[in-house]
């Protein structure tokens, strides 16, 4: 009996031991650590802009636009281009048609923004200065063609929810957004980065064709393009007018002035009549043909003159026209400093064509704009000049469309007037 008791004790202890280890529960499924997103510390973009006194007018513009809550949402990330008050004053002075003079007190400017400037305009302008991504200076590309960044501005939501105007920051030849210099280092905010800009970057309003179609100095270009498109519906994917009216396009048009076209056409017709190149000596030797050539080239009817159909075929004209167009957006500040060839739209038909040669010369660091810019066709003896006409205090490159000749910005591209027709051969 004692041995039984003893055995019971032993086994009893064993089972007590068992029950002691039992409370070590079965483990639940092994979970992986989850990182919970935390709002980034520090002030938001809006708060950061508000804290910079010299940005107060743009801040007013943001408030007016209704986009302040958007950029203050720390769950989102944006890059904002912000001009200082001097730049904003220039803009307001222009936008008010000079009613707000440049020397008016700041309150007048801010008053204009918050009461006179339509909200839709403010929203368009501010939206065009906001990229829905983080883009620090280090990340701004220097390559050509320009990388186009979608902004948050949808110019026609009724057309498509995905329509966005694009903006072109570039770090080639300095630091730029479109053709406006970025003037300082990055200003970081909790949910993005701010780039100070020298002037207000305004969104384009019209299409390239709108300019070409209405510019009294580009009638030959218009006629040439119309001739190139003869027999092609505007909705056709090969229509040039269609492309120049297409918001999805991204082009640079080198637009020869009417004088340039007349000169080239006169020479071409003269040569067609005489078989000789147009030189003062040859013109003097063949006065009748010369006069005839001048007369024929004196009007844009030259492109529709049946007598010249064999010389200026639709294909030839189109070939010349597309040779003036790049398939990307090149502001003069994006041009290389050493002449470099870039393909044109002609390359889609003639892939091995070298394209056009671009070159620009830049001013001092304090005035970083291109002072001269040229584009040269393979068949041209000399490069064509982009018509940059100095007009202080606003740099020539910044004269707004339709008043300027270079860096004219449109919904679907940039237009530069040039003084020669570019010849592909």
């Amino acid at each position, binding site marked *: 009996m004692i041995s039984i008791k003893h055995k019971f004790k032993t086994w009893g202890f064993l089972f007590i031991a068992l029950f002691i280890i039992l409370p070590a529960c*079965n483990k639940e*499924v092994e979970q992986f650590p989850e990182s919970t997103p935390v709002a980034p510390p520090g002030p938001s973009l809006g708060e950061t802009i508000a804290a910079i006194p010299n940005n107060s007018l743009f801040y007013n513009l943001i408030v007016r636009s209704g986009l302040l809550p*958007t950029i203050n949402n720390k769950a*989102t990330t944006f890059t904002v281009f912000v001009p200082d008050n001097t730049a904003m004053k220039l803009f307001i002075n222009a936008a008010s048609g000079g009613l707000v003079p440049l020397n008016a007190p700041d309150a007048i400017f801010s008053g204009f923004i918050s009461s006179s400037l339509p909200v839709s305009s403010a929203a368009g302008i501010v939206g065009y200065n906001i990229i829905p991504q983080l883009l620090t200076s280090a990340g701004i590309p220097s390559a050509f063609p320009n990388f*186009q*960044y979608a902004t948050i501005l949808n110019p026609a939501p009724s057309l498509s929810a*995905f329509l966005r105007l694009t903006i072109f920051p570039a770090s080639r030849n300095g630091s730029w957004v479109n053709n406006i210099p970025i003037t300082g280092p990055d200003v970081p905010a909790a949910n993005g980065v701010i780039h100070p800009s020298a002037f207000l970057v305004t969104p384009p309003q019209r299409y390239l064709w709108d300019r070409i179609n209405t510019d009294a100095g580009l009638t030959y270009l218009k006629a040439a393009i119309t001739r190139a498109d003869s027999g092609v519906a505007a909705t056709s994917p090969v229509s040039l007018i269609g492309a120049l009216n297409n918001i999805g396009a991204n082009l640079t048009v080198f637009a020869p002035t009417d004088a340039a076209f007349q000169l080239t056409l006169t020479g071409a017709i003269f040569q067609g009549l005489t078989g000789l190149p147009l030189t003062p000596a040859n013109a003097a030797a063949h006065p009748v043909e010369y006069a005839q050539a001048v007369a024929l080239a004196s009007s844009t009817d030259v492109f529709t003159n049946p007598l010249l159909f064999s010389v200026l075929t639709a294909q030839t004209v189109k070939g010349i026209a597309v040779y003036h167009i790049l398939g990307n957006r090149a502001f003069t500040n994006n041009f290389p400093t050493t002449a470099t060839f870039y393909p044109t739209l002609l390359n889609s038909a003639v892939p091995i064509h070298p394209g056009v040669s671009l070159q620009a010369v830049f001013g001092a660091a304090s005035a970083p704009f291109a002072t001269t810019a040229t584009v040269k066709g393979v068949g041209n003896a000399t490069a064509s000049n982009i018509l940059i006409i100095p007009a202080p205090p606003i740099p020539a490159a910044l004269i707004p469309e339709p008043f300027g000749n270079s860096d004219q910005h449109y919904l679907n591209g940039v237009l530069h007037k040039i003084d020669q027709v570019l010849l592909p051969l």
Partner: protein
Amino acid sequence: MRISLRYFTLFAIANILSFGSFAQIISIYGNIKNSSSNESLSAVSITIKGAISGTFTDDKGNFKVNTNKPLPVTLLVSSVGYSIQEVQVTNASDFVQVGLTPSSLLGQEIVISATRVAERILESPVSIERVSAANIRNAPAANFYDIISTLKGVDVTTSSLTFRSPTTRGFGGSGNVRFNQLVDGMDNQAPGLNFSVGAIIGLNEVDIDNIELLSGASSALYGPGGMNGTLLMTSKNPFKFQGLSFVIKEGIMHTDGSERQLSPYNNWSLRWAKKLSDKFAFKITSELIQAKDWIGTDYRDYNRSAGMLKAGTRATDPNYDGVNVMGDETTADLRQVLNGVAAAAPFLAPFISTLTTKPINVSRTGYNEQEIIDPNTLNFKVGGSFHYKISPNTEAILAGYWGTGNTIYTGASRYSIKDFKMGQYKFELNNKSWMFRAYTTQENAGQSYNLSATTQNFNEAWKPSPGANGWYAQYGQAYLSSKLAGMSDIDAHSAARSVADVGRPAIGTPQFNNLYNTIRKIPVPAGGALLDRSDLYSAEGSYNLSSFTHAVADILIGANFRRYSLNSQGTLFADYDGPITIDEVGAYIQASRELTNNLKITASARYDKNENFKGRFTPRVTAVIKVAANNNIRLSYQTAYRFPSTQMQWINLDLNSYKLIGGNKFFEKFYHFDTNPIYDREALTRSSKVQEVYKVLRPEAISSFEGGYKGLLMNSKLLLDIYGYYGLYTDFLGRKSVVQSKTGAPVVLADTLTGQVYSIPINSTAKVNTYGFGIGLDYSLPLNFSVGLNVASDNLTNVPANFITSFNSPKYKLNATFGNIGFGKGKRVGFNIVYRWQDGFYFEGDLANGNIPTVQTLDAQISYKLPKTKSLLKFGATNLLNQYYYNAVGNSFVGGLYYVSFGYNIY
């Protein structure tokens, strides 16, 4: 062949008709009781010494035995658990009353499966475990089948309440094709699946006579399969066990409400057996299990292509693929949509290009298994048999088992086995020296469906993934809009999902139910239904030649024929032109001889031929060395193999992203692999072209060496069983992804995405080794107390890098029991406590891979006997502490089940 068959028939008839001479028959009547408790004892064997006649006591302990021997005769009265008694009868009119004295059961059990010949478990030449009806009565398990998990060296994979898949020596998994399960000699695998559908058909608790488990390789006697064990369940013979018996078990589950609300567990078993005469007896059995099933609630994120769990939730991972979340297996790269937008809106192309530098894989929104699964698990079984004694030595049996039910099974997906029906019908002739059995298994998958496929197709039916206004287009556009609004990736994804999911049918709504119920009834791949009405036909016979050959050796011969008839109407198998048949034949011979008093050698050999594979020879040699009385050392060399499963041979399933096909040569021509070759897809992704030859598969094989010891020690109070084994696996059957050009042009890198992908079965060239050991101790304490402890270890070595073995076995596992089969006044109170612990391990399955933590469970029961009616009142609990556990990734989480049961006439 014909002549030998004729001889065999004559021989059989001669055996059947071996009646004795027509002498005068006298009948002896009597009653047997337990001498210590005075309970009447049923199923006690009464035989007459020197004669072949015998009988069993009925449920009241009464017997009647006839003999033509002149009096006096000696009755041998025996029953497991009691000392044998001899009683002399001198007068036929005397009513014989015998009191049997209980004796220790330890090591006294008789087993058959180890050599197909009855022998004491102590003398078995291979490792074997036995569960008796008494063990079942005393176990706390809610279902007798669950007791298997407490046997030494057994791993059980629990898919759901009624779908448990046991294995030994590793290679566990839901639906174990390396483990055979025989019910009264019938292989109860579902012919279309090649594994047993849990215990959905078979025996019920009150009809189980015993369960024997052969651990490890056992093809030599039981044919293909059984590489990792064979489970043999034997029912109670109606000649021996008579009367009405039933067990009503009522329980509760989900008591903590964490998975579901508290729900009842109903399990009713019934058996009625009657011996109408000395020649004729029958029985009827039935069982009903009804409960709300355990469910899989593993919502961890799964990286399906890498085959591993990863961090993430639906909220943080756009490509979330929850383990127990269905429908989110559909995934696509959002770049397809975004690039389309970029082409249409060139001004956005650069912006989009900043988003698409790497794949943006997005999965469809799934539904939790818990939400979509039919919560009711149901199992209804009915069975019966007629037994006719053609002669005292020959019994003819006509038996049928039919079962239907709902359960959950884990394969490459979670499957709802719904209204599954399976019937097994057999005719058997049993003679002392020979046996013939013919049976068929008739399977009908009913309304079973694949939860993932159904939910994926449900999603497609609600809102298609592709198309200009498809789910991905909506998602992609919304994602892009959000990105254009400066949102973070994760916020953009979450906004996009809420846009694409607008109108998503909510669980429980008529819209959801109608659509879901429609889809689940459409066969895969368009829906989720599995149409499978495959059948199995089998005939086998054996003859024990020992009476002729005993002087040299005891010889047993046997042969079998088996036919699978695959019938899925072209929805699962390539059976478009009617059922596909697969025939197998096999034959074996076993010879054993006691070389000395202490050494018995048994050698067996088996040859099997499947019509689609080369013949296979499996030898087995065993030795039993008697070191002392009741102490034996066993040594064995065993081989086993399995033919590729019916699915591995003939499956032909288009899973949209790839075709899952079988290994039959048929497919080579069917898919033109001979003229338009297939290439290793993984190699092709590395731009390396490796042409894959569509080879004929070889059976997977194992050779195993084992040594063990079993003996009674400490005055026969301690039963010690030890084993150690070493196995070598070859020709592992697995799958491989290959690519074929859709056009017939030479295959190129892009074909890894755009070509036709197939998953083909292959034999691996890898050889892996397994080894392990087990120790079992059973100790009889005074006053009917007993304790038991078993520990086992299974290990895998020589695994080549990146080779998935699905070994799925914890390195160590332990079971401890403490119980009493009768104490207190009248020895009526009993109890049993079972503690199980298993080590954590890395689980590799078709559904998911991942770590399984250590599991421990405590089961307990306390019971009270009502001897008058042989009834037992039992309070029991499995997983008493209600600590949810799971033993395979994706499987149900099993909690506590608490029950009270009343068993009538069960001992």
